């Protein structure tokens, strides 16, 4: 599942190459959304910080 952002963004870059700007922006937004979701899934442990 963690390969998905790369796949979506690579597909988006191909749409950039072929001049499809709207598709590219959509792929970028999907890539960012996937990054946020995967970050939320992985950032679960409490930080061991004391002030």
């Amino acid at each position, binding site marked *: *599942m*963690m*390969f998905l*952002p*790369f*796949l979506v*963004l*690579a597909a*988006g*870059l*191909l749409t*950039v*190459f072929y*001049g499809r*700007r709207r598709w*590219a*922006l959509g792929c*970028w937004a999907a*890539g*960012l959304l*996937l*990054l*946020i979701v*995967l*970050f939320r*899934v*992985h*950032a679960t*442990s409490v*930080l*061991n*910080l004391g002030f």
Partner: protein
Amino acid sequence: MTQGLSLRLNAIGLLAIVAVLAFALGDQLLKKELPCPLCILQRVGFVLAGFGLALNLRFSPRPSHYALTLLGALFGGAVSIRQILLHIVPGSGAYGDAFLELHFYTWALIVFVLILLGTACMLLFDRQFDEGAHGAGPLTGLALLVFVLFVVLALGNGLSTFLECGVGLCPDNPIDYEFLKPLPRL
């Protein structure tokens, strides 16, 4: 700043991101060190940031494209900060070997901050936007070369992540490529 100069600087900026992604992937393959989930997400942050520069190269510079670069660097930097905080307390260990006395996630944060600074500086020059889509069109020369390398590295990182983690989530401390393990004997 003319649009031509802006495009050249965008190509150089994208080349720098390509170099970072290539270094990370090269280190992974040569030293056989597997990237952790947060490391992989930082690489995604670099691809998101570079995407805005790639849009500039193909469709001419626009503030919205620079915004994508800023957002990509901001979220990538947030992942780096999370990983730095995981290991900031003495005795809490670290992930991977250090490079020039800093770990990769610390270098990642430094590069993300540099991307933020560089992009903000580029936004100071309005004349690059006045010429409209004059520079838009099929990619040629250095821009094409850097763009192709960027796509190859995005796909390469995707492939290595697929081999490492498969279709599920990556383990926090990966020790082996999920898809390169020998099959169990029947």
